[in-house]
C-alpha cells in the first residue's frame, strides 16, 4: 500500500495541474484572448470563469504535495502499511467484477440494456456466485422483464435497445 499511496497522490497531482490548465482555456469563439486571462478578478472585482476551478485545483495540488510529504516522513497510516494495496483476491475480484461491469457497458451499446442485464446477471450469478443454473436463469430473465415493465411501460423511460430494437417494436405496439 505504501507504493500505491504515492502513485495515487502523483496521479491526483497531475490531475490537479490539468484542471488548472483547463480552467484557463480561452473561449472557443475568440482564441486571441490569452490563456489564464480568466482566473483572476475582472475590473469590477468579480472572479472570472476560471477563478473557482483554477484556485481549487491549486489547493488540490498543495494537498497532493502535502500527502507526498506525509509519505516521505511516513506520517500517514498508508505510507507505513505493509499490506498490499490489492491482494491476490482483490486483484482477481477487481478484474472479474470490474471487467464484468465494463463488459456490461459495452453490451448495452450492442444488445441494449435488457440484453446486457441478462448477460451480466448470468455471468455474475453463474460464474462468480456459483449459483445453480435454475436460479441463475430465473433471476436473469425476470430482472430484464420486470425492468421493462417498470421503466419502458410504467415510467415511460425508454432504455436503449441496441441491435435488439426490432424485437421491441411489437411490444411498443401493445404496451405504449
Amino acid at each position, binding site marked *: 500500500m505504501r507504493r500505491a499511496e504515492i502513485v495515487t497522490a502523483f496521479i491526483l497531482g497531475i490531475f490537479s495541474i490539468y484542471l488548472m490548465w483547463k480552467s484557463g482555456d480561452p473561449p472557443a*469563439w475568440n482564441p486571441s484572448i490569452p490563456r489564464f486571462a480568466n482566473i483572476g478578478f475582472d475590473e469590477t472585482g468579480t472572479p472570472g470563469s476560471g477563478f473557482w476551478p483554477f484556485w481549487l485545483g491549486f489547493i488540490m495540488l498543495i494537498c497532493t504535495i502535502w500527502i507526498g510529504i506525509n509519505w516521505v516522513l511516513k506520517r500517514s497510516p498508508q505510507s507505513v502499511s505493509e499490506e498490499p494495496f490489492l491482494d491476490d483476491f482483490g486483484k482477481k475480484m477487481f478484474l472479474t467484477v470490474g471487467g464484468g461491469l465494463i463488459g456490461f457497458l459495452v453490451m448495452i451499446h450492442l444488445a441494449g440494456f435488457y440484453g446486457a442485464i441478462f448477460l451480466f446477471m448470468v455471468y455474475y450469478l453463474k460464474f462468480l456466485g456459483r449459483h445453480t443454473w435454475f436460479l441463475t436463469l430465473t433471476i436473469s430473465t425476470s430482472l430484464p422483464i420486470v425492468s421493462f415493465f417498470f421503466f419502458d411501460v410504467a415510467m415511460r423511460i*425508454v432504455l436503449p435497445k441496441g441491435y435488439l430494437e*426490432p424485437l*421491441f*417494436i*411489437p411490444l*411498443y405496439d401493445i*404496451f*405504449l
Partner: protein
Amino acid sequence: MSILKKLATGFVAAGMTISAMSGFALADGHGWKPNKPIDFIIMAGKGGGADKMARLMQAIVEKEGLAERPLVPTNKSGGSGAEALIAAKSANDPDHTIMVTLNSFYTTPLRQPGLDVDVMTFAPVARMAEDTFLLWVHKDSGITSFEQWLEVAKSEGKNWVMGGTGSNSEDNIITDFLNDNFGLSMKYIPYKGGGAVAKDVAGKQINSSVNNPSEALGFYESGDMIALVAFTDERLPMFPDVPTLREKGVDFSYFMQRSVVGAPGMSAEAEAYYSGLFEKVYNSADWQDYKSKKSLMGDLMSGDELMAYWKVQRANHETILRASGAIQ
C-alpha cells in the same frame, strides 16, 4: 389476465415479425407513423419557460391521444443548448427525435463554432408561439413611465442593476440594446432562470428586468411589479396600458421563438407527420388558452416559411452578437 394475454401475443408477434421488421413502420399504408417512443428533447432545464411549454405540449398530445407513440421528454440544458443540439445532430434515429427550441437555437452555434452545427439542417416542424418581453420594475421604485425610467437609470449609471437569464441570452441582448441606444451603463447580472430574476426584482435585490410575462405575472397581479414598456410591434392585449418601444420612436422589437424542430436527416414523411401533429396541438383549446393567458404571440408556422423565418432570425442574431462583441 388481459395483461398476460397481451404479453403472450406480444412475444409471439415478436417471434414472427423479426424478419419482416424493416418495413413495419409503413405497413398500414397511411403514410409515415412513429413505431417507437419519440425522443422529445427540451433545449432548457426543468422549470423554465421552454420546459413548461414542452410539458404542456406533451400533456396535450397525451390527453387528446394525438400521437401513436408517447413523447418522452428529456431536458438537455447543458452548454446553453449545445448539449441538445449535439444530441439531436447525432441522433441515431432522426425520424423519432424532435426538439423544442428557443433563441439559443441561433446564438449557441454562433458562440460555439466548435459544435459544427448548422441549424438550417434541422427539420422545420412547427413554430408554436413567440414569447414577448417587457421591461419591469418594482412599484416602490416610484417609476411609472419609460421616460422616467430612462432618467433614473441614466443618473444611477452602473449602479442601476438589470437581471436576466444567462449571458449573451435574449435578456442580455435587450439590455445591451437599451444601454447602447439610450446611452445608459446599466449593469447586467446573469441568473440561471427567469423565475429567480422576477423574484429578485420583487424582493428589491435588483432594479429592473426584461422578464417574459409568464415569469413575472404572479408579481404583476399582486401589484409588486409594474411593466413600463413592451418590446413588441403592437401593444399586448393583456397589458393594454403598456406602450411599445416602437411608440417611443425606437425601431426595435424582440421575440423569443418557441419552435419544434426535427433532428437533421429526418425524412420528409416524418416531418409532415410531426407538422400535422403539432398543428393539432396548436389548434387545441388548451394551447390557445395558454397562449392568451401568458401573453404569447406568433401564429403557427412550418415548412419553408419557418426555414425563411430562421434565416432572417439567425442573421439578426449574428449582427447583434457581433455588435456587442460576443462573437467576432
